[in-house]
């Protein structure tokens, strides 16, 4: 062929090859960071999973609107495990093997989290759990972290408060769920060290609608205060029955019902109930110099503006989990599973909705007792107990 034709041929092929290479590099740069999640959006634990789901969606959208992370878009792959450990296991498997996510944030309840732990340990995927029980991080598992305060911390915070009010004998009434059982076991364990004697220990079924029998037994016991580890509708009914039976002892709830939902369901009966919770719940009445004030105020504003509903501490746990994961990726400039895991473990001084987080190889949660604030219900809303 002629010289002109050959030149055209070379230039043509060259530019095709060049744009293919550019395209391939472009496609690689556009490969989204996949954040996997399995949450109890429906079912008896929807208290937890629904705000968690909403929070993750909101944060992913906000991050993507601001340009993504490391120049890449974030993609949220989320499944509804409905509080069922079996479903949680199945979805975790799917997230790891089919969706090939870079990090997993999820496990609204302890049961669901523990079902996923063996899978993430085996596959080597960093997993930030949003559940409460201490067994999740004790013993420490290489790939498993958590953002919510442990049930043991909640027990300790409550016992410290009981002691301060002069009580030495307490009663427990708990449900049959994973969280309830775990927190009850922890409370029984740490009570003596905190100067509290457990004189009554009642239980109820997860779907029970009447706890007057158990509360009647507690009323007749030597207990000076009552603690109800649990979440969902159980504590709401316990609170109502408590008021009905006019038990004189003060009632403490766990952080498992740290949401307006609980106050709404319990009605007037919630008046005077105390529980340990994250600063997020009382963002507006926090003093201005509180280190968490800025973070919790902004999250509250964004969440209520978008979803037209109150914030809950559980959504806050999802917020913290997401931010810790994203900060870790930025710290190591990569979404590689192993590197991100190391960076998560090295999180220091992160101010979140749950408290100030300082993780270490032996502490995969990073919170201390100061992260809990003691709250009391007054006039249908939360107040800080000094």
């Amino acid at each position, binding site marked *: 062929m002629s010289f002109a034709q050959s030149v055209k041929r070379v230039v043509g092929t060259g530019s095709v090859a060049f744009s293919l290479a550019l395209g391939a590099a472009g496609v690689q740069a556009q490969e989204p960071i996949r954040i996997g999640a399995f949450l109890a959006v429906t079912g008896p634990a929807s208290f937890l999973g629904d705000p968690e789901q909403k929070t993750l969606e909101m944060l992913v959208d906000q991050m993507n609107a601001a340009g993504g992370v490391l120049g890449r878009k974030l993609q949220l792959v989320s499944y509804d495990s409905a509080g069922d450990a079996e479903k949680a296991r199945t979805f975790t498997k799917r997230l790891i093997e089919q969706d090939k996510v870079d990090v997993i944030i999820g496990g609204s309840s302890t049961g669901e989290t523990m079902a996923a732990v063996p899978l993430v340990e085996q596959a080597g995927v960093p997993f930030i759990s949003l559940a409460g029980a201490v067994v999740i991080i004790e013993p420490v598992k290489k790939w498993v972290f958590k953002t919510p305060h442990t049930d043991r911390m909640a027990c300790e915070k409550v016992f410290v408060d009981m002691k301060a009010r002069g009580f030495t004998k307490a009663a427990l009434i708990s449900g*049959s769920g994973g969280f309830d059982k775990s927190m009850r076991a922890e409370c029984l364990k740490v009570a003596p060290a905190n100067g509290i004697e457990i004189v009554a220990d009642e239980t109820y079924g997860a779907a029970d609608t009447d706890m007057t029998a158990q509360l009647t037994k507690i009323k007749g016991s030597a207990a000076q205060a009552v603690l109800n580890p649990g979440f969902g509708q159980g504590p709401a009914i316990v609170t109502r029955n408590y008021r009905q039976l006019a038990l004189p002892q003060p009632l403490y709830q766990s952080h498992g019902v740290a949401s307006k*939902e609980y106050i709404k369901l319990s009605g007037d009966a919630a008046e005077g109930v105390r529980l340990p919770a994250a600063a997020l719940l009382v963002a507006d009445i926090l003093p201005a110099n509180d280190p968490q004030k800025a973070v919790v105020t902004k999250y509250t504003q964004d969440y209520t503006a978008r979803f037209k509903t109150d914030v809950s501490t559980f959504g806050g746990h999802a917020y913290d989990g997401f931010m810790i994961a994203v900060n870790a990726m930025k710290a190591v400039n990569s979404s590689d599973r192993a590197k991100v895991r190391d960076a998560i473990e090295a999180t220091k001084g992160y101010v979140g909705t749950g408290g100030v987080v300082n993780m270490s190889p032996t502490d995969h949660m990073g919170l201390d007792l100061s992260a809990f604030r003691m709250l009391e219900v007054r006039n249908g809303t939360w107040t800080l107990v000094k």
Partner: protein
Amino acid sequence: MGGAWLQFVASGLTAGAIYALIALGFSIIYNTCHAINFAQGEFVMVGGMSAVSFVAMGLPLVVAVPLAVAAAMIVGLLVERLAIEPAHGNDVVTLIIVTIGVSLFLRGLAQVVWGKGIHALPAFSGTDAITFFGATVVPQSLWVVGGTVVAVIALGLFFNRTLFGKAMQATAQNTLAARLMGIDTRVIMRVSFALAALLGALGGVLTAPITLTSAEIGVMLGLKGFAAAMLGGLGSFAGAVAGGLLLGLIEALGAGFLSSAYKDVIAFVMILVVLFFLPTGLVGARSGDRV
């Protein structure tokens, strides 16, 4: 201990009244349609959840409650018309499976319509507890027991004093003969479902202020109501009431004196006990074959 015992009895009777209403629904449908309607618990749920919706819309309780019961009756009619009637003529097991399917369907539909959360209904006359001899009840408990008593008496009058009620009894005894006598048995069956839905929904609205309600409550309530119906004798009305109250009492006393963790087990152990030793229940079912 005296006060505690009475407290258990009080909670037991309250729960038992609801089981009785559900068991009555089972018996009515069993009598006329010869099928066990496992969607009975869902009627309770529809009643309670509809009431919550109507109240959320701004309607006063006085209006919301009857409307909710009416809504449940419409659902009952639709169930009969769309699911049971086409399956008519099949054997009992097929009909039972159809009702199980209906139950799943209603539960799913409820989650779509009302969401998956838990809801409370305001109490009919306040929440200040009433004390007697060391035990306390909320006023709503009195509504539950009172409502059940009124329903049972009304049912008795309906079946024994009205022509339609007698026609229903006739259909229950012998469907073919009833048809030959000019009774439209299809109408009878529709009314049966509407009646069962009414009873279930009544239970639902009465108990929602105490037990809270959600799209999932029908499951346990349906099973326990069935246990109560079996205990008293499937098909017998006196048996349904007796079985319901007895089951409620045994549950409450068992939770109080034995173990609170195994409360639900008691209902299901009762089913087993009845099936093994007393298949026709305490009062005995109204059944028999004419030769």
